[in-house]
């Protein structure tokens, strides 16, 4: 399955759907989808050094939310938006990865948080499909 992300309809917020062959691919694509929203739709070429990222959560769905919230935090506090990811380990309760992205001069404050509302990660024939609503 080719990894992909798309934005679905929601009256007030942003509903992000991602697809990938496995959990690592889903998390990667979710990170790229988030970056595209934060950067106004464009995904620039990454530069600079790779940085380590690690997130732990109680279950697979919570891991997706916490992963995105970690990236929201880094964008806002460090003004760093990763657009490329290399996942080293992805299990239901932990993801260890490296990220490479861009430095921004203006804080990308559009996304407040990833939420648990209507959160789902489903098995589909060629991998996984996830949906998460982002508060914007």
């Amino acid at each position, binding site marked *: 399955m080719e990894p992909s992300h798309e934005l679905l309809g*929601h*009256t*007030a917020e942003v509903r992000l759907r991602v697809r990938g062959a496995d959990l690592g691919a889903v998390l990667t694509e979710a990170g790229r989808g988030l970056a595209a929203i934060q950067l106004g739709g464009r995904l620039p070429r990454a530069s600079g050094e790779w940085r380590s990222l690690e997130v732990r959560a109680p279950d697979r769905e919570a891991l997706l939310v916490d992963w995105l*919230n970690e990236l929201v935090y880094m964008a806002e506090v460090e003004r760093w938006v990763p657009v490329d990811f290399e996942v080293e380990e992805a299990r239901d309760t932990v993801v260890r990865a490296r990220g490479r992205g861009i430095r921004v001069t203006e804080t990308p*404050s559009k996304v407040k948080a990833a939420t*648990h*509302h209507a959160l789902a990660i489903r098995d589909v024939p060629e991998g996984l499909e996830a949906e998460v609503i982002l*508060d914007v």
Partner: protein
Amino acid sequence: MIGTAQTLEHVVRGPVFYELGTRAREDMRVPARVYADDVLWGQITRDRSLEQLINVATLPGVTGCVYGMPDMHEGYGFPVGGVAAMRANDGVISPGGVGYDINCGVRLLVTELELAAVRPRLTDVVHELSRSVPSGTGRGGRLVLTDAELERVLGEGCRYLVERGLADPADLEVTEAGGSLPRADPAAVSPRARQRGRDQLGTLGSGNHFLELELVERIDDPAAAALYGLEAGHLAVLIHTGSRGLGHQVCTDYVRRMDQVMPAYGIQLPDRELACAPFASPDGRAYFGAMCAAANFAWSNRQVITARVRDAFGRVFGDAGRLRLVYDVAHNMAKLEEHGGELLVVHRKGATRAFGPSHPETPARYRSVGQPVFIPGSMGTASYVLAGTDAALTLSFGSACHGAGRAMSRHAAKRAKSGAEVRRELEAQGIVVRCPSSGELAEEAPMAYKDVERVVDVVHAAGLARRVARLRPVGVVKG
């Protein structure tokens, strides 16, 4: 999506409301009432907001009825425009019922300037405002706080800003709760939340946050308008923003914490984003303390922006540009309030207080008419000032709506009209626009919102609040 046909067969229609009894879904503990006319009801039933309101009606300790305001639309967890009260002794508090932008709110300032006289300088003042009040990005204007200063903002809110010369004591008299909640517990705010908020005081943020110049176009209630200081033809300023990254992180932290502790309290929910804990529990108390601290931060944010706006007006208009605060209302909060002799935790998600003349928390100077209630439209449509009513206490736990309410997704709005088109249309109406992002402008286009006139008509007819004045935008600064 809501099982519309199944659920809607249980709807009972009132004069200006639609009500679902507890038979509509077996896990409902209380009925759900939505204030709306036919058209607004039609819009409300097209998204998931009714299902979300029914979910709220299942929360432990919920009492009376859960309410949907006329601007209700789909959110996450609670619908936007949702009101629910839980008993303080055995009910829950839910961070998702407050939302990520804790104490997001609106304040109105009035000037003695007549628009007709200052129209030639309108562009200058909008430009000054856009330079002075940053959206939260790299430009100047914000207040970067030391650890000790942030601690005081969290603990004391606007009271601390009086000491810093950024607030006038008179401002606090017309800010909900005096801009300072005494139950704030800065120690319950995480280092991450502090980090996100440290350099964001005095910033608007993005999305639907705004700073608008308004013309007081029409007075509907002369007595109340006079008390609020509203005069037809004069220039006024509306500020809409909240607790920025600090509040967002407080909510993120406590949704996670509640999610993990709920099993210990035996709580099961239809939606994980409604994660909650008993208000009286250590987890509930910790969130309440952190939420109150974030609320203090939000009031301080709007107050620092007010100081910047006053400076900008002073630079353009000199002494004639004085601005007096009419009121500051919160619309994403959980408040401890007494209703019918019982202490309740009233959650208002995208809904504002609308206390009437008799309520002790209505500011002393507004006791004869009720507290001011603001219902902003969108960038190109009217906004309204209303007065709270005593009747609202029994109709909605003393609540009214917080805006026109979205009717169209951001994605659909952008597809329908470009930012450049929206900008041209607003300018054709004589509105001066400053917004760094065309995409954001398109997302917030007037057509993406419900008809504010219709929303206000329902609020007025239902008795939640009564019309005082109509404002029309003449200048817009978006985050």
